[in-house]
């Protein structure tokens, strides 16, 4: 491994983390998979990127990645946003790993704020970066108390906040990081994905791993786990819809980003998932100057 030996010359090991740290993270991951939705404390390390910029996701990826993996990194659904580029570059350099933008070709997808539109398959792993793992945090600031609430399954207060939304706005006003109940037991934050993506978590064939570096927590959804978005019987969970379709590929089933065109209120809507959009455009035979990739 030339890249690996180059790195060790610089004093860093494969995928940056030392083997003992990787083992510690893998133990936490195993526990997380064994107790879906439960937040496992782990000895998060200082990473060469700031806390809050994906250190949890990066540590999880570093602990599971190997030279035969194919890695995709997205931020806001896009492969070309700066932080996604930065993290992809980090692993290309430290783990000598192939990268891709095509969701279906990736064995590991690290993401911030989105679940890809292309349905994930068995054998794929989605790694989500988590800023605040505790779903009860805004209702109870104390970690010591929220841990007890999880242990005792005291989740009534979460519904109090949904009730309050309904009373004030006539609808549930949570639009992203929408709380879910995992296998009928643990209340979980799905990370700040739009609630549009919540249904993709339910019984997904892929393994989903959640890493919160600064808050030092790891949690997981093993494949085919039941994930239920909280709601009331008479106000069921619903996702965002748009009147528009994607201006580039015409998709009506994807999460749309609003792009401001001018200073007179002109705007258009395009897929937030750039890979999904590009693939649809290619299938429609549209020439796409934006096509990603090249032989390196």
């Amino acid at each position, binding site marked *: 491994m030339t890249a690996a030996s180059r790195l060790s010359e610089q004093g860093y090991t494969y995928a940056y983390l030392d083997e003992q740290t990787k083992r510690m993270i893998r133990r936490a991951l195993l526990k997380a998979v064994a107790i879906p939705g439960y937040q496992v404390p782990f000895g998060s390390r200082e990473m060469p990127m700031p*806390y809050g910029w994906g250190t949890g996701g990066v540590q999880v990826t570093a602990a599971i990645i190997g030279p035969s993996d194919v890695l995709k990194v997205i931020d*806001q659904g896009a492969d070309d946003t700066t932080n*996604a580029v930065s993290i992809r570059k980090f692993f290309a350099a430290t783990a000598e790993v192939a990268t891709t933008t095509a969701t279906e070709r990736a064995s590991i997808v690290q993401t911030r*704020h989105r679940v890809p539109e292309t349905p994930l398959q068995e054998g794929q792993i989605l790694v989500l970066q988590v800023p605040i793992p505790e779903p009860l945090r805004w209702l109870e600031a104390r*970690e010591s108390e929220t841990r007890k609430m999880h242990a005792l399954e005291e989740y009534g207060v979460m519904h109090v906040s949904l009730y309050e939304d309904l009373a004030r*706005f*006539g609808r549930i006003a949570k639009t992203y990081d929408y709380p879910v109940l995992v296998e009928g037991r643990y209340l979980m934050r799905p990370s700040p994905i739009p609630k*549009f993506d919540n249904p993709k978590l339910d019984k997904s064939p892929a393994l989903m791993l959640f890493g919160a570096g600064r808050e030092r*927590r790891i949690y997981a959804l093993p494949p085919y786990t039941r994930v239920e978005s909280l709601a009331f019987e008479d106000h069921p969970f619903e996702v965002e819809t748009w009147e528009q379709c994607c201006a580039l590929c015409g998709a009506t089933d994807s999460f*749309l980003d609003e792009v401001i065109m001018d200073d007179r209120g002109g705007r258009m809507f395009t897929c937030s998932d750039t890979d999904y959009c590009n693939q649809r455009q290619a299938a429609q035979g549209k020439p796409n100057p934006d096509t990603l990739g090249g032989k390196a």
Partner: protein
Amino acid sequence: MYVAVKGGEKAIDNAHAWLKALRRGDPSVPDLGLEQIGQQLALAVDRVMTEGSLYDRDLAALAIKQARGDLIEAIFLLRAYRTTLPRFGVSEPLDTARMSLKRRISATFKDLPGGQLLGPTFDYTHRLLDFTLAAEGEMPAPAPESEPQDEGPVPRVADLLGDQGLIERSAADSGEAAAEAPVSDITRDSLRLPAERDLRLQMLARGDEGFLLALAYSTQRGYGNNHPFAGEIRCGQVAVAFTPEELGFEIEIGEIEVTECQMVNQFAGSDEAPPQFTRGYGLSFGQSERKAMSMALVDRALRAAELGEESSAPANDAEFVLYHCDNVQATGFTEHLKLPHYVDFQSELTLLRRLRAEFFAKRTQAEEKEAAE
């Protein structure tokens, strides 16, 4: 190998190239050497080592140079490097009673064994800009030296009080099991609450100087007052000893400079304990004296509940203090707001438009109804 490349990558590379050029600044101005930083910005180096939790003056100087003087950035660089270093083991506890002193003051006794030693300090300087420093090449006269007085170790004030039973004993001199228990490592484990004092002190030792200073100050202004006296502040070289398992005996591996502060605080006593003084403890690398004092005050404030005192001030709240004192964590999360949040914002925008539409529809309805009546 298939590697994805995009425009964002170019932008990042260009930005970093620009940053590099700016860091160097005007090439006609001489480059700043690490030795210059280590020698002439020594207190910055001390702070970076303390909060970076790594005693290495050269690396700290390098981090300061690379960070363009942004000390939190430098601390971050040092921490990220530190985390990759292998652990050989844990040193023996530092014996600060055997410190070779550069400075030693006590605010509680006018004179005491070993005496007061003012040392190199800004205290009692008049804060007037010294324009002779602006003129290059100023060379101060050598500092006067006294005859070395080798009278052996200078006892710590807390030990002097302790010998009379006037102050609580530390776990180490009471020979309690706690002193023998393995010390947790906050850089390897997740912080769990309630945190024992070893973990609290570790968090405070690497905590942000400004944050701890403000908290310490707040306790003096009545938010959790603990009536402190600066029992002793000492700064100097202290030996680091290590016992390799294969040898089974202690060997000295070097000396480091540290500042130790022991605050002496009132305590009324309880059912179990007689009235006595209690301590707040602070330790920092180099001459980070403000940090050591702040740490000692906050350490004591965090013990309020355990000592049965009122503990409702911010500085008494362990969860609040420990979760927010780390500037690398704080800066990362605060600055992460710079990252794109298009998707969450889009979700909020969609909801807001819908709520506004409902609001205006309701108002129009009400107006029509009013007009009809």
